[in-house]
């Protein structure tokens, strides 16, 4: 079965610093990959997604992610973090479509931004 690992439970960065959140997945083929963000007590908002093609994908709010097949990774990056980026970030993988569409999430990385 597919799985997602987010090695960092909590990351603290200073405002204006760069950010990289790690994500590793386990699956035999190339899955669909996603990054979601969740503010406290809120639902999930999609930041970006990778299905195929260019391995560097751009998302909303200035985020990007790079798919590396050899490392089974899909790390999220942002060159300059803003205080409003403080939230929890989830990497997810999906296998199948239609009635087989099921997201498997990592445990999340909590981002704290210091002024």
């Amino acid at each position, binding site marked *: 079965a597919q799985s997602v690992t987010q090695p960092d439970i909590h990351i603290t960065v200073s405002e204006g610093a760069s950010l990289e959140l790690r994500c590793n997945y386990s699956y035999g083929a190339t899955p669909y990959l996603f990054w979601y963000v969740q503010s406290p007590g809120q*639902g*999930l908002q999609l930041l970006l997604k990778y299905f195929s093609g260019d391995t560097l994908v751009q998302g909303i709010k200035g985020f990007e992610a790079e798919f590396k097949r050899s490392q089974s990774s899909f790390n999220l990056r942002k060159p300059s973090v803003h205080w409003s980026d403080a939230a929890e970030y989830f990497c997810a993988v999906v296998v199948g*479509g239609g*009635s087989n*569409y*099921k997201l498997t999430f990592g445990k999340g990385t909590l981002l704290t931004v210091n002024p």
Partner: protein
Amino acid sequence: DAGVTQSPTHLIKTRGQQVTLRCSPKSGHDTVSWYQQALGQGPQFIFQYYEEEERQRGNFPDRFSGHQFPNYSSELNVNALLLGDSALYLCASTPFGGTEAFFGQGTRLTVV
């Protein structure tokens, strides 16, 4: 477009009681999935409904059941509530064959 809407936003129940949560999918979406997110954890897939039938199920006991209506809205029912059922319950919708899920704001269930 109202997006995915869930009700209620919060509720408190007593152990042993039953609860029903509701979800209206995004316009044009016909597939609804439910997820449970315990505190400090990622969402866990409960089940998925399409064409008013349960199509997939995660590792949840039979106390968790659901329903989908002809207008594609859905309900999640949990019987014989346990303290461990306290969580944020998220509904997500996709169009059939689609590859992007849209989530509602969730229902925060507290079991006391």
